[in-house]
């Protein structure tokens, strides 16, 4: 029986049989369907996935004409991250001219709105100069990152320390305080960047600190869109499931804890978000095939429920991509093709 080379979620190159590959796809979609209470992938979709993942090609792609557009998180950080010490405007030009980017994102290395707020006056001139030379749309981006509002990094009591002490009410109050501070910072920075000419603002890893993090970003998005109706607000998530770190927070009457992508997108739309970026986390103990079947099962109903463009996150460890710093092109290209063709995305 021929063996198929495939990747695990941690990037390891493994050999599986045809039967094992089929089983992984079926179990992956079943896992997602049960968790989110959405339909599993149908036979045609599973067969399509099977064809993609049984290929022996090192690289695969969508068909000509089926391409989508790409938005980026932490765009300008990625060149420096590999030790190439270019300025950020040069990094943007590299993406624009050499890497085929449809859009780009200017970002600070301390990639949080709280960190950027005190130095926003230094960020704005960089953005303004970048806008003079760039042709592609330019976002400014950072993370809501509510965690850094907690002591010792921030001013509010640390909910993660209060909860094991049984101080639940105090922990909730601390998180609510962090929400208020984060909204102010995101609106402040977002406003400054719009006034400097940004095409869009990106909120990356929304929900990383659970439901307070998601709430803060939804509220900041709503305020910014009311203030600047033509600002593009991209809201990219951190995980497939909103962790109930507070548990009782609501946005427009909907409790945030426990929401999956097909539910998250509705609130994002209601907040005025322009582009929604759902995330599905990769399980490193399972194959990439299992992970992509699972990811697409979550994403498909999200796309169906959306009235705005959906750009699924497909960086390291999300969207069926393995958790590995040096991503194998075989795994990434398969996931990319699968997500676009079966997930029916508007972008990545």
């Amino acid at each position, binding site marked *: 029986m021929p063996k198929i080379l495939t990747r695990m979620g941690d990037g390891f190159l493994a050999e599986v049989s045809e039967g094992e590959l089929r089983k992984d796809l079926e179990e992956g979609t079943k896992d997602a369907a049960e968790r989110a209470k959405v339909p599993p992938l149908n036979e045609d979709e599973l067969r399509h996935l099977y064809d993609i993942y049984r290929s022996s090609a090192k690289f695969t*792609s969508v068909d000509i*004409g089926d391409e989508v*557009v790409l938005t980026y998180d932490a765009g300008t950080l990625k060149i420096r991250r590999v030790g190439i010490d270019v300025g950020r405007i040069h990094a943007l030009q590299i993406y624009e001219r050499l890497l085929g980017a*449809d859009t780009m994102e200017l970002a600070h290395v301390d990639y949080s709105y709280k960190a950027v707020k005190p130095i926003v006056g230094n960020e704005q001139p960089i953005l303004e100069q970048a806008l003079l030379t760039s*042709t592609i749309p330019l976002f400014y981006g950072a993370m809501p990152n509510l965690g850094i509002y907690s002591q010792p990094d921030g001013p509010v009591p640390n909910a993660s320390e209060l909860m094991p002490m049984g101080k639940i009410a105090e922990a909730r109050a601390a998180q609510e305080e962090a929400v208020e501070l984060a909204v102010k910072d995101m609106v402040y920075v977002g406003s400054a960047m719009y006034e400097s*000419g940004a095409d869009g603002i990106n909120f990356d890893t929304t929900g990383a600190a659970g439901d307070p993090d998601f709430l803060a970003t939804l509220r900041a998005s709503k305020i910014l869109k009311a203030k600047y109706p033509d600002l593009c607000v991209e809201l990219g998530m951190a995980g497939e499931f909103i962790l109930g770190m507070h548990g009782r927070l609501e946005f427009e009457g909907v409790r945030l804890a426990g929401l999956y992508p097909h539910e998250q997108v509705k609130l994002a739309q209601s907040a005025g978000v322009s582009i929604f970026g759902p995330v599905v986390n990769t399980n490193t103990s399972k194959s990439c095939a299992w992970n992509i079947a699972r990811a697409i099962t979550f994403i498909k109903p999200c796309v169906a429920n959306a009235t705005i463009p959906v750009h699924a996150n497909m960086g390291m460890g999300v969207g069926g991509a393995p958790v590995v710093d040096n991503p194998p092109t075989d795994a*990434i290209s398969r996931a990319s093709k699968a997500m*676009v063709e079966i997930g029916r995305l508007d972008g990545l």
Partner: protein
Amino acid sequence: MAITHAIASGMGGMRTAGDLVARMQMTRGMRIKEAKEYVARKLSVSVTDLSDPFRMTEIRDELGIGLVTPLPGRPMGMEAKFRIAEILGIKINCVNKFKKKANIDR
């Protein structure tokens, strides 16, 4: 990561019409099919042409909306964005800010 996705699934930005299609998603909330059809109509090309670097280089040069290789005298950067805003019929924030700051906002 970025280049793999760009080649596997991306339109290719300024190599093609990727930036233009992205602008329609960003400014008007268009889904991918609608955004491509809109841009194709505005550029008087087919939707298939939008992903073709050969065809789009010609079109981008004719319309002055920015080329990957910055040939002398061709609009680029802000100049190209002025033209993009006009051709696509959209507002581009930095273009409007530029007009205001340069006192040509009439």
